[in-house]
C-alpha cells in the first residue's frame, strides 16, 4: 500500500448500547498508510468503541469498516491477521515471561521455529526488553509492560497497530519513551498506527493526523497545524514596560487591519490576529518609537481551542461532565 492511500476506513459507524447509550453516531474517518493517526477526544466520546469495532472485538449497529483492504465486519478472521491491537489493559499473560508472551502470540499467528525465535529476539531488543526477556511479565514496571504489550502484537508484522490510550498511567519519561518507539515504527517500518488519546499535547506533538471525536462523531480531522490554522486566530502577546503603557499601545494597534481585537492583563497586551508570524512586523512597526516592548511572543491556537471551536465546549469541561 502506497504512502498516502487510506489503510483504515470507517464509514458511518453507529452503535447503541443498551439502554439507550449512543456510543457512536455516524462516525467516519480514514487513516493514511504508514502514519501515526490519533483519535482525540474526552472520555466517553466513543474512541474505545471505534477501536473495538476496527479490531473485530465489537460489531456496529450499522456502518462499514475496512482495514488494509479487508472488510472487517464481513471477514473478521482475515482482518485479525493484519492487525495488532493493544487494549487499555495490559494484555500480557503475567505469569509468562516477556519472551514467552511474544512467542505465544507468534504461534497463534502461525509462526514457528527459528523464524519466530529470531523475530521475538529482535523485537525484545528493539523495545529495550532483552535484559528482562526471561522474567515473568508481572515483575515489569508500567512502562516496560506497555512496551511488552506493543512488542507482543507486532510479532506477526501487522500492517496496522491499534493502541487504545497506551500512555494513560505512564510517567512523563515512560510516555516519551513510548512515543519515541511508536514514531520510529511508523517512520522506519511503515507500520500504520492508530492511537486513541485524551491528551491534547500528545496528539499535537506526535500524530501526523488527528481526528477529534465528540459524542460519537468526528467533528474535525486534519494535521494538527491544519486544524489550528483552520481557526485563523493566533495571538501576538506583547509584554510592555508597565501597565501604564497598555493604553498608548492599544491606541497604536487598534487601527491596524491585521488586528481583530485586543485584551490586556497587567502589562501584557494580547492582540488577536489571523496569522501571528505575518502580523508581527506590522504590530511591531506600529509600536516602534512610541511604546517600548520588553518581549513579544506569537501564540498559535492549541488543540484545546480547536476542540472548543468544533465541539462547542472546552475539552476540560467535556472531560468533566462525561462519564468515563
Amino acid at each position, binding site marked *: 500500500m502506497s504512502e498516502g492511500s487510506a489503510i483504515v476506513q470507517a464509514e458511518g459507524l453507529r452503535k447503541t448500547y443498551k439502554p439507550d447509550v449512543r456510543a457512536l453516531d455516524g462516525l467516519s474517518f480514514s487513516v493514511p498508510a504508514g502514519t501515526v493517526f490519533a483519535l482525540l477526544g474526552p472520555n466517553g466520546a466513543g474512541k474505545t468503541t471505534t477501536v473495538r469495532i476496527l479490531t473485530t*472485538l465489537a*460489531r456496529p449497529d450499522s456502518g462499514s469498516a475496512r482495514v488494509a483492504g479487508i472488510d472487517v465486519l464481513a471477514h473478521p*478472521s*482475515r482482518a485479525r*491477521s493484519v492487525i495488532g491491537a493493544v*487494549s487499555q489493559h*495490559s494484555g*500480557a499473560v503475567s*505469569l509468562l515471561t516477556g519472551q514467552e508472551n511474544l512467542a505465544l502470540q507468534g504461534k497463534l499467528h*502461525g509462526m514457528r521455529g527459528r523464524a519466530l525465535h529470531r523475530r521475538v529476539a529482535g523485537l525484545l531488543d528493539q523495545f529495550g526488553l532483552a535484559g528482562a526477556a526471561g522474567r515473568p511479565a508481572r515483575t515489569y514496571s508500567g512502562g516496560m509492560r506497555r512496551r511488552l504489550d506493543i512488542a507482543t502484537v507486532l510479532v506477526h508484522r501487522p500492517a496496522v497497530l491499534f493502541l487504545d490510550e497506551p500512555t494513560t498511567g505512564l510517567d512523563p519519561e515512560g510516555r516519551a519513551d513510548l512515543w519515541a518507539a511508536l514514531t520510529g515504527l511508523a517512520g522506519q517500518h511503515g507500520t500504520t498506527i492508530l492511537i486513541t488519546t485524551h491528551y491534547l499535547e500528545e496528539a499535537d506533538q506526535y500524530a501526523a493526523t488527528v481526528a477529534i471525536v465528540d459524542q460519537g462523531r468526528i467533528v474535525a480531522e486534519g494535521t494538527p497545524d491544519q486544524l489550528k490554522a483552520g481557526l485563523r486566530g493566533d495571538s501576538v502577546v506583547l509584554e510592555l514596560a508597565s501597565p501604564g503603557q497598555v493604553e498608548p499601545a492599544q491606541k497604536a494597534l487598534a487601527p491596524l487591519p491585521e488586528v481583530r481585537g485586543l485584551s490586556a492583563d497587567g502589562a501584557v497586551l494580547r492582540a488577536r490576529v489571523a496569522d501571528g508570524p505575518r502580523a508581527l512586523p506590522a504590530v511591531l512597526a506600529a509600536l516602534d518609537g512610541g511604546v517600548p516592548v520588553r518581549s513579544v511572543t506569537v501564540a498559535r491556537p492549541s488543540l484545546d481551542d480547536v476542540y472548543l471551536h468544533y465541539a462547542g465546549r472546552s475539552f476540560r469541561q467535556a472531560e468533566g461532565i462525561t462519564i468515563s
Partner: protein
Amino acid sequence: MTTARQAWVILTGRYLRELYRQPAVIFITLTQPVIWLLLFGELFKNITKIPGFGAGNYATYLTPGVVIMTAMFSSSWTGMAYIEDMQTGVMDRFLTAPVSRGALTAAMLAYQAVIVVVQSAIIIAMGWGIGAAFPGGAAGIAALIGVAVLIAVAMAGLSIGFALLIRQREALIGASSTLVMPLTFLSGAFLSLRLVPGWIAAIARFNPVNWAASAGRAAIGSHPVWGTVGSYAGYLALALAVTAVAATQAFRTYQRSI
C-alpha cells in the same frame, strides 16, 4: 492463520505453563482431594455396617465418589481464569488474534481434562493405599478416570459460559459453591442411594454427578456391566456437548456486550 486444532494445543500449553509457575497451586490441587479421601474415609468408616448399604469396604465405595467430587470441584472454578483474562486484557488479545472461539474454549477444557486425569490417578492410588479394591483392573480404572474427565469438562463448560456472561468473580464463586455441593450430596457419591430418602434418590437419577459416580463405581467392580457404564458415559458426553456449545456461544454474547 493457525488452524483451530493447533491453536487449542498452543493455548492449552499456555495454561499448563502458568500452572507450572505456581507451585503452591500445584500443591493444593494435588493434596486437597487426598484430604477429602482420608477425611471422609475415616468419618464414614462404619457406614458399611448399616444393613442394606450393599458394599463391604467403604474405601472401595468412597474412592470413585471422591474422584468424581474432585473433578466437579476443580472444574467448577475454570471460569475464574477467564474472568482474570477478561480483566487483564489477555482475552482481548486472543480475540484479536486469528483464533476461533471454539479453540479458546477447547484449550481450557483440555487443560481441565489434564488436571483431572492427574488428580484422579493420585486419588485412586491413595484409595488403594487405604484399602480400596479394584477388581475391575486397569480397564475399570481407565473408565473411572474417563467419566471423571467427562463430568469435569461438562462442568468446566458451564463455568466458562457463566464467567463470560456474568464476568464477576464473586458471582462465580457463589454459583459454584451453590451448585457443586448440593449436586455432590444429591448423588450416590458418598452414600448408597438405598439408604437416602426417596426424593433424593429420585433427584439423583437425573443428576450428572450421580451418573458419573455410578458409572465409575460400576466400572471398577469385579463384573462391570459395560452397558450401564456406557449409557451413563453417553449422558455425560451429551451434557458436555451442551455446555461446550453454550460456552462458545457465550463468547458471542460477551462480544456483543463489550
